[in-house]
């Protein structure tokens, strides 16, 4: 099986076809919560990328030892473990960022996307493809967060990654919660429009949780 795995497809799928934020609309909370700045969005994305890769890897390794009857509790436990590790590392090394978004880092544990990839992909595939799948999904997540972060930070603070660009703050509302929701809605609508116009897609987000 390992020979027939197409890594390109997995990566493309994670970033475009099943982008966790814009296409699957899973785990939306942090997408709005931490994207008032590019840096926060990026670090959150890195945290998710790490957790997803490790969780998928662990689940794949243990897939023959986990009894199907207790599979969900086991997955939850594995996820919680890797989230705790991420949380500890972030708290020790990224102090300023952690002050802003520590809660959301801890809440990665409740992300539907992590559990669903463990269940749908890692429990049926070998170690390497599983880790690549986790990383690809995490990368899709990271890119979505960075995209939103660029949009919001540029409009809201006139800066990118904390470096001032405009020298003023054009639309303060964009860094507030309401602005986050607007940004998310407008961005999704715009991507749907692009999809319909240029890629012949249905242009409708599926929604779910």
């Amino acid at each position, binding site marked *: 099986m390992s020979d027939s795995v197409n890594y390109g497809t997995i990566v493309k799928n994670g970033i475009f076809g099943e982008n966790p934020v814009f296409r699957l609309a899973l785990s939306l909370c942090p997408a709005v919560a931490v994207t008032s700045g590019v840096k926060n969005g990026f670090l959150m994305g890195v945290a998710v990328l790490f957790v997803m890769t490790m969780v998928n890897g662990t689940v794949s390794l243990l897939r023959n030892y986990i009894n199907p009857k207790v599979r969900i509790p086991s997955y939850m436990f594995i996820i919680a473990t890797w989230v705790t590790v991420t949380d500890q590392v972030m708290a020790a090394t990224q102090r300023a960022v952690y002050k802003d978004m520590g809660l959301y880092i801890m809440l990665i544990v409740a992300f539907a996307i992590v559990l669903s990839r463990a269940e749908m992909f890692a429990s049926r595939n070998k170690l390497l493809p599983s880790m690549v799948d986790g990383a690809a999904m995490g990368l899709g997540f990271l890119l979505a967060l960075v995209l939103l972060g660029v949009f919001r930070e540029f409009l809201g603070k006139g800066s990118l990654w904390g470096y001032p660009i405009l020298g003023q703050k054009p639309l303060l509302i964009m860094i507030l919660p309401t602005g986050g929701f607007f940004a998310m809605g407008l961005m999704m*609508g715009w991507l749907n429009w692009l999809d319909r116009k240029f890629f012949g897609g249905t242009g409708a987000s599926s929604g779910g949780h």
Partner: protein
Amino acid sequence: MFEKVLTIFIASALINNFVFSRYLGLCIFFGVTKRMETAVGMSFTFTAVMLIGAALNWVIYEYVMIPLHLGFLKIVIFIGVVAAFVQAADTIMKKVTPALYYKLGIYLALIVTNCIILAVPLINADEHYGLFESMALAVGSGLGFSLALIIMASIREKLELADVPISFRGLPISFVLTGLIALAFLGFSGMITL
């Protein structure tokens, strides 16, 4: 003391509303507000589970985790406690009040891995709240979340008939709508300093 409890309650329900200013529980918020009935059922279940979960976790955090210096395990332990409690509630409800179980049972399954259920004990632990303060936060957040769900469900019913531009149908317009509601809720800001 009483004043602080009341302050936490009001602040968590309106000003720091989980949905409109803390961005938590969005999946559920968008998922269950397509129908009013579901939204109401979810509201009840969530508030109850949040309250009991917060109280249980507070006791465990204060009397087990802090004395044993196990604070760093809080994510694992909180999620375990909530899962165990929900499982127990599920079993008990099925036996004792089957009617209620058929109404609310389906929501219980969704709850275990939900961020707002977990966020309450995490915030409580972070702020070092006492038992009553923790419970005030839980009830306030629960009612605030219920309010958000019910408003959203009633508006989305009205929106069903609207000719929304194709690209914006479904989630995008719901996001914009949530943004507008959050904008209105900014009117409450500045009422309470936490």
